[in-house]
């Protein structure tokens, strides 16, 4: 029989399809894990409802549970569950190291205060918003005026 600890460890080795520097666990998209005999129930919390990577995530979760000898049951939770605050400290650091600004803490009303964003390359706070939207639903695009590099910024939601 598979243990929950093994499942969490296996899922922590599954890279996010769009941000492969972080795992699904670091991204916070894994909710509850429940074991019932061979059946392994996993809650998958979408970052954005329109996220096109969701089906890939589901397939990867299923494959990694089967590799452990479990029978996966992945439930996509549509209700409000994921927020960018679920990204772990380790996940944030990996994003920053990969040149992607980790999201700001979620506040009741998003005010795009430029002083709150740090360039992941040089740490400068002198950055500007280039586009609220980016290559995936969860990203914006910013520009650092100090090191003159564009960078991607994860949205706080």
């Amino acid at each position, binding site marked *: 029989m598979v243990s929950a600890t093994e499942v969490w460890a296996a899922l922590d080795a599954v890279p996010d399809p769009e941000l492969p520097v972080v795992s699904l666990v670091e991204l916070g998209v894994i909710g509850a894990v429940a074991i019932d005999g061979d059946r392994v129930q996993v809650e998958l919390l979408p970052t*954005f*409802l*329109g*996220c*096109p990577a969701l089906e890939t995530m589901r397939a990867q979760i299923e494959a990694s549970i089967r590799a452990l000898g479990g029978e996966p049951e992945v439930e996509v939770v*549509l*209700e*409000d*569950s994921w*927020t960018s605050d679920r990204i772990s400290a380790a996940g944030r650091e990996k994003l920053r190291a990969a040149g992607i600004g980790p999201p700001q803490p979620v506040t009741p*009303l*998003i005010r*795009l205060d430029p002083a709150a964003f740090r360039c992941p390359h040089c740490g400068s706070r002198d950055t500007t918003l*280039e*586009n*609220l*939207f*980016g*290559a995936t*639903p969860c990203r914006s*695009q910013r520009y650092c005026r100090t090191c003159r590099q564009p960078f991607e910024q994860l*949205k706080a*939601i």
Partner: protein
Amino acid sequence: MPGRAELLLPLADDELVLGWRDSEWTGVAPFLEEDVAFSSIAQNEIGHARALYELSVRGEGGGGEVDELALGRAAEEYRCAPLVTAALPEWEDTIARRILYELADALRIDALTGSDDAEVAGVARKIQREERYHWAHAEMWLERLLGDDEGRARLEAAVGRLWGATLGLLEPPLRPALEAEAARRFPFPLRGEPVERAAAPPGFEPLWEEMTAVRRLVPHGQW
């Protein structure tokens, strides 16, 4: 009390069809930032439609499957509002529609977060969380257009053309709140009678033909 499908289908159809209309700017928006923004917003709206169809299917009086609801119905069975079906090839009209849609949509999503149906309220909260970015985009355009005389005149004309359809997006009890919000945002008067939902709204037939073409050609095809 109306069933879930009754409550959610008009909203889901609006999100699907507006997502479709907004995606028409992919590749041809006036500049790259807006190309990316419209593509991303469109994808997000269609994601909301998918979640709402999913809830309709699961709920009482529901049944069927999500793709069938989204793309398998006859044109006259869709419940979308005239605001979202209209083909708007002029950029100023499209921008005005984005601003007006977000203004109105925020009110009905907010109302849904208070639903007694916990699943519906939960999905509404998720949508609300994501829609803040759509509003931030709309608000940026609003400020930009109101920043000079030409922008203001064009916005006023475009909003004037769409105002009746915007009122028609919401159920009558929510309309006074929309009028109050709009009066707060727009420095010009708004006039027009509500354009109500009806079968075959303007522009929908050709859009439906295109939207459902693949599914009609290959029923139940899998990708």
